[in-house]
């Protein structure tokens, strides 16, 4: 495929067609924050932190860079006042749930987000879906999924699958930005299949 040239924060970047704006920016060493993006997973567009301003044929728009395909002559701005505001408010919204998540604390500092801006309701999960998608797309086990919708949405391990699959995997714990996946798993284990831990990993 032929390379095309776009401009990110004033810098000309040459990438193959089909690349996303996020990939192009990272290749050029321009950082864009993400929570739900993972190299091994299909892009999701859920956290919206990677939002940037794009200008194409004179029209400006705000898009998520993880899904937006590059085009010739596209002008991308990753740090406008509006982009920063979107990120700041999103971080503040998420900190109402997970005020002490290290990744959020780091982002809060960078974007001047106030962790106390919105009423706290600690659920610790930011619903990035990394665990759900990693389990489905990479491990193909579907041991953890989303339940409910809107603000009631949460992740939930499915005991019947988790009892069989999770013990020898637990790979989602490491990619979770808030450690909630681990907590949710142990809660499921304690409620649905206790005793396994005592018995040890050797007996199935």
């Amino acid at each position, binding site marked *: 495929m032929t390379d095309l040239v776009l401009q990110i924060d004033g810098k000309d970047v040459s990438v193959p067609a089909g690349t996303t704006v996020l990939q192009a920016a990272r290749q050029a060493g321009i950082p864009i924050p993400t929570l739900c993006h993972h190299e091994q997973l299909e892009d999701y567009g*859920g956290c919206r932190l990677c939002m940037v301003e794009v200008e194409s044929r004179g029209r400006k728009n705000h898009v998520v860079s993880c899904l937006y395909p590059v085009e010739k002559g596209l002008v991308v701005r990753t740090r406008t006042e509006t982009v920063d505001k979107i990120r700041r408010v999103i971080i503040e919204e998420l900190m109402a749930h997970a005020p002490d998540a290290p990744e959020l604390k780091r982002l809060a500092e960078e974007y001047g987000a106030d962790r106390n801006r919105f009423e706290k309701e600690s659920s610790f999960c930011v619903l990035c879906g990394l665990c759900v998608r990693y389990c489905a797309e990479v491990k193909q086990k579907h041991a953890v999924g989303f339940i409910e*919708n809107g603000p009631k949405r949460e992740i939930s391990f499915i005991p019947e699958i988790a009892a069989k699959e999770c013990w020898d995997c637990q790979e989602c714990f490491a990619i979770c930005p808030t450690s909630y996946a681990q907590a949710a798993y142990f809660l499921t284990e304690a409620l649905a299949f206790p005793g396994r831990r005592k018995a040890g990993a050797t007996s199935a």
Partner: protein
Amino acid sequence: MPKLQSAAALEDYRAQVLSARDPARPSIAVCAGAACGGLDSAAVAAAFSTAIEKQAAAAKLDFRVTGCHGFCNKGPNVIVGPGDICYFEVKPEDAAEIVACTLKGEVIERLVYQHPVTGEKAVHMSEVPFYKHQMRILIGDIPKIDPMRITDYLAVGGYSALAKALSKMTPVEVLDEVKKANLRGRGGGGFPAGLKWETTRNAPEKTKYVIVNGHEGESAAFMDRAMLTGNPHKVLEGLIIGAYAIGAQQGYIYTRHDSPQMALHIQAALAQAADYGLLGKNILGSGFDFTVELHYDVGIFVSGESSALMRSIEGHAPEPRPKYIRTSVSGIWDKPSNLNNVETWANVPEIINRGADWFTSIGSEKSKGTKLVSLSGHVANSGVIEVPMGMPLRTIVFDIGGGVPGGKAPKAIHFGGAMGGSIPISLIDAPLDFDGMAKLGAPIGAGGLLVMDEDTDMVEVARYLLDFLVKESCGKCVPCREGMYQMLKILTNIKEGRGRKFDLERLADLTEVTSLGSLCALGKTSSDPLKSMLRYFKDEYEARIAAGAAAGGLAT
């Protein structure tokens, strides 16, 4: 029942249907629309059947149970022909008298419309204030049709537009006519349907789909249900014509799982159309093949969002996906998929039959044709209405709606449901127009119009609508899921006297970020009602916050 092999065969069959019908023969139509149904119009219909049998009147009059007549708060509605005599609030015990008087050609004075203030009576549909200012092109046939009988639709000229399109027009000619008519999407966006059709038609993939979005979920909107339940064949005819123009082989009618009457009527319409050769292989001998499937939602509002709807048809959870590539190019199973709303499709047969010039002669400069509106709220007459685009809202609210009951003054008009907006009554002379209303901050949306009187609490209006949307968010993206939830919490606090001085600033940030950052139209427009409140009714919000502080609340 014939399998119609050509346009001529359809016209022969229609002539046969009409020759068995006498327009001068008395008729009684009982409304079984959603509102009348709720007022037990089924008992009224049963009483009519009994009365007709007792009076041995079956041979002397036509009796039918129909879809929504429109005047919902005066139900159960009965319309008597010839002459369209309207009886309101009909009870089962009135049935025998109506049958007897109809046979004698007499009018029952006590059941006709009486103006609540002047006491003036109106007998015929053309005189009843609710009806007389309307232009009922799409819904006018509903009282004449038993939706379970295709012959009733044929009797009012049904499928003649399809016959014309297939036998006398090329697909491109059909497309050009719709483009020339400047038919704009009735589902909310107002995007020109012809351009959308053209995009799907020109997309390189051979397999193409057309879809009826019959997933009406907007709060205070009930006109699509009336249209699709009362005259399903009209929507289907529009869809088949569209499929011909676009080159689609498969259509879907996507609708709600919780409206059994509508589902029954659509199923019957699909089966009958197939039996008559109006669906399936070689439609009317034209060589055009097209089939339609009915698909139900899973009971969530966002199912009506076009990309979520298409995910749902594929068998996935109805989660929206970003539309950086339009669904008209890459929709269901990544094939070009043209989706239009029920009302948009219903306009198509009229445009083909009467021509684009006729269509563009109705309406305002940039919004052509008529619009179905669900009129409700603090208004004397509520129901489903159809008016020409460009009609001043004043005519809708006062002449059709009869103004605010109880001697109260109107305060605001809300358009577009939970993702619409409210405008103060001082703007009541604004015309019903896609662009004009959007500029005012109360986009027409799908067409739900709520009138609010002087006692309406504008904080509660925004809170109520957000409460609805919060529950309907799918929860995938942060600005929609969290942003709306925080807005709801702040509004609840303000309403309950716990507002804080910085709340308006927090709301401004939340509305901005939710609009810019959300993934789909639900999130993007979820804060529109609140934005309109902060534009026109900010004083009321400030006063509530201050009053909460004065009463010992938290405002600091």
